[in-house]
């Protein structure tokens, strides 16, 4: 290498080095923040996992029995504070949409039957509460924490999923996605 070409090649190397670092930073920026939690879209657009669970007040309910009806599936527990507000909200929703065949179903999450039954009485929850003692239904739906609600259309496809408490203002527009 000649003395005159050395500075030029040094500058060239510097540029290449900076370009490599820049590219790596770019890749890092693209990668970071991408799907840090399972996306809200997971499950949406897919067939709702089947279940057949015992009702708190006796009998069983399976998703197959509800085929042909829009279903609002809510995971709740007596120890969940926002679930108290949701109980009233969903009871009203069930009554308001009864004529359109909507089935509102609650699945008890990590709770015992006695506390759940007491909760239903106390907060006037009239739609069915189903027991999921093994947690398998919650697992099949990929529940993160409660309250969590799935909106399933008459064809059994999940159209919307709400992480956390339901919001009154958004409920009707979400319902529109599953109503016939």
């Amino acid at each position: 290498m000649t003395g005159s070409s050395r500075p030029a090649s040094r500058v060239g190397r510097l540029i290449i080095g900076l370009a490599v670092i820049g590219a790596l930073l770019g890749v890092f920026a693209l990668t970071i923040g991408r799907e840090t939690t399972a996306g809200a879209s997971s499950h949406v657009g897919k067939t709702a996992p089947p279940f057949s669970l015992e009702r708190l007040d006796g009998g069983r309910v399976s998703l197959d029995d509800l085929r042909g009806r829009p279903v609002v599936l809510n995971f709740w527990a007596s120890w969940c504070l926002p679930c108290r507000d949701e109980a009233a909200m969903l009871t009203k929703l069930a009554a308001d949409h009864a004529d359109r065949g909507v089935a509102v179903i609650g699945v008890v999450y990590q709770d015992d039957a006695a506390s759940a039954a007491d909760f239903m009485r106390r907060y006037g929850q009239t739609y069915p509460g189903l027991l999921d003692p093994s947690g398998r239904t919650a697992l099949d739906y990929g529940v993160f924490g409660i309250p969590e609600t799935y909106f399933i259309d008459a064809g059994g496809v999940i159209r919307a999923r709400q992480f956390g408490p339901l919001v009154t203002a958004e409920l009707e527009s979400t319902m529109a996605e599953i109503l016939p």
Partner: protein
Amino acid sequence: MNPRAAFRRIDVALLAVVAVVIVAAVVTWARPEERTLDERARALDVELRCPVCQGTSIADSPAVFAVQMRAVVREQLAQGASDEEVRAFFVERYGVWILLTPPTQGYEVVVWLAPVVVVAAGTGLLVRRSRRRSESDHPAALPARLGRPATAALTGAIVLALGLPLGFALAPRGEGAQISGTSAGSMQQAPSIAQLEEAAARNPRDPVVLVALADAYLGSQRTVDATALYRRALEIEPANETAALRLSVILLSAGQPSEAQQFLDAVLQRSPDNPEALLYRALAGYAVGAPPESIRADALRFLAMAGDDPRRGMAERLLDLASPKPSAAP
């Protein structure tokens, strides 16, 4: 011995060591069929994220849901699923997020490969540079030609080559060993209340522990026990907002709004913008027949801050009740 030959022998010995370690690591990885079902289950538990805890594996979490997930892992393995099929089962339900170490794909491959490429390129440059320098001085043995920086880089590369496969091969097993004793047949309930009671017995003056136990009691409908503990937590730490708010809710639902009001006043004195305290004070105010303007003020401030809070309806109703009839309160 001729120094050149001695260095060559060292090179050959180092290469042999590296080769042996790599082969050992590969062999360790590639014999899952020799592991028992419980060993495989424990290794998978360490890989799976607990969805209700975040940041910990289901192996490390005492949460009931984690226990249930561990049971599902064992159930799947017992039914003949491969490790990959078990991972796929959970990924289908939670996405790749459920894997604590997600598979590298897309851009991430570049991020993973970059350090290797940089080390290789750096070593190459150093080798080239020192070769150039030493060619004029001593056209001698390889390590001498490499010079000190290149030798250091080579040593680093060898350490990496030794350390990485060993680390990867050994790490998952060590962690997995912590959680033996959980099997599909014996589902354990997380001893939450018992555990918290034990913690409270050990730390009877720790308000955090007391509030956690009180919360657990409240969840099990043991309201009297919960109330006593919230009160004790507040005696120890009068500024404990969680205890004050929970106690207020209990008092409100027990028909003692004036006592609830006192706790809520105290909370709002310290945190004037606590939305929960504002809503509950409006509620307590309505129950005790407080002046409508104070109920309205609290409800309005709650509404201003509550965003999409599902309790907006409650605040709006209170606002409505306190608005038209100045003497509406019972």
